[in-house]
């Protein structure tokens, strides 16, 4: 084992992960990263928030950035600090409309059942859960940065 064993262990709990931009691979990748973040000390009060927002951000990439084009890899890098978590999601799909993340303004739910929205929930969730959202298009890639602050009171 020796050095190789150590390297493998590091690989298995790495907070950086790449996977193809398909729904099935994204589903697995989200589960893997959430488990690793919890194992590496992400406060349990924040783990649900992070998992929800991370899933929405990655699903958006699969659904929108790669709509109608062949999937390449999505790369997710997480930096876990004592008081915050920074997640960077990188892909080479299509840019976001107007080069900015949607504002996630909720549609009214005070309506008849048949008028209820069935979508548009993703960015609502991200905006409500992340402390900061930053997007840029750079060298043909989308970079989405999500930051989560840990509040001791939560």
């Amino acid at each position, binding site marked *: 084992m020796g050095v190789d064993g150590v390297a493998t262990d590091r690989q298995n709990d790495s907070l950086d992960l790449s996977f193809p931009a398909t*729904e099935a691979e994204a589903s697995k990748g989200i589960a893997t990263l959430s488990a690793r973040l919890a194992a590496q000390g992400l406060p349990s009060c924040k783990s649900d928030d992070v998992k929800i927002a991370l899933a929405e951000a990655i*699903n958006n990439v699969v659904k929108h950035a790669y709509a109608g084009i062949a999937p390449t890899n999505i790369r997710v890098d997480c930096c876990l600090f004592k008081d915050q978590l920074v997640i960077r999601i990188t892909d080479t799909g299509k840019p976001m409309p107007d080069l900015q993340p949607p504002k996630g303004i909720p549609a009214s*739910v005070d309506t008849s*059942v048949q008028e*209820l929205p*069935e979508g548009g929930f993703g960015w*609502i969730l991200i905006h409500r859960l992340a402390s900061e959202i930053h997007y840029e298009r750079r060298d043909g890639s989308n970079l989405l940065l999500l930051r989560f602050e840990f509040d001791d009171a939560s």
Partner: protein
Amino acid sequence: MGLSSSTTGNTQVISVHSDRIDAAMAIQFKEDMRAQTQTGAARVVLDLSAVEFIDSSGLGAIVASMKQLGDGRRLDLAGLHPIVEKVFRLTRMDTVFRLFASLDDAMTASAD
């Protein structure tokens, strides 16, 4: 994805046998729900106690499932894990559905 169903009187209980309802299975879920709810039961209780994660696509599929029931029928949700309940709360869908902590709670509550 697996759904199972049992009907008592006017109430049909549909249990989800999957630990997640996410983008990868949302369309299948909606179609399976359509098939399961052909019974015409006035009240459908969806037992989510096995579901440990839901994303916005899964949420959308549950909303769609309620819409496809049509008028005069209702969909109630039971056994929500905290993370699932949170997704409903943050999108205000907790005001649209009746949420019950457990299937027992849902069954002892009146149909309306």
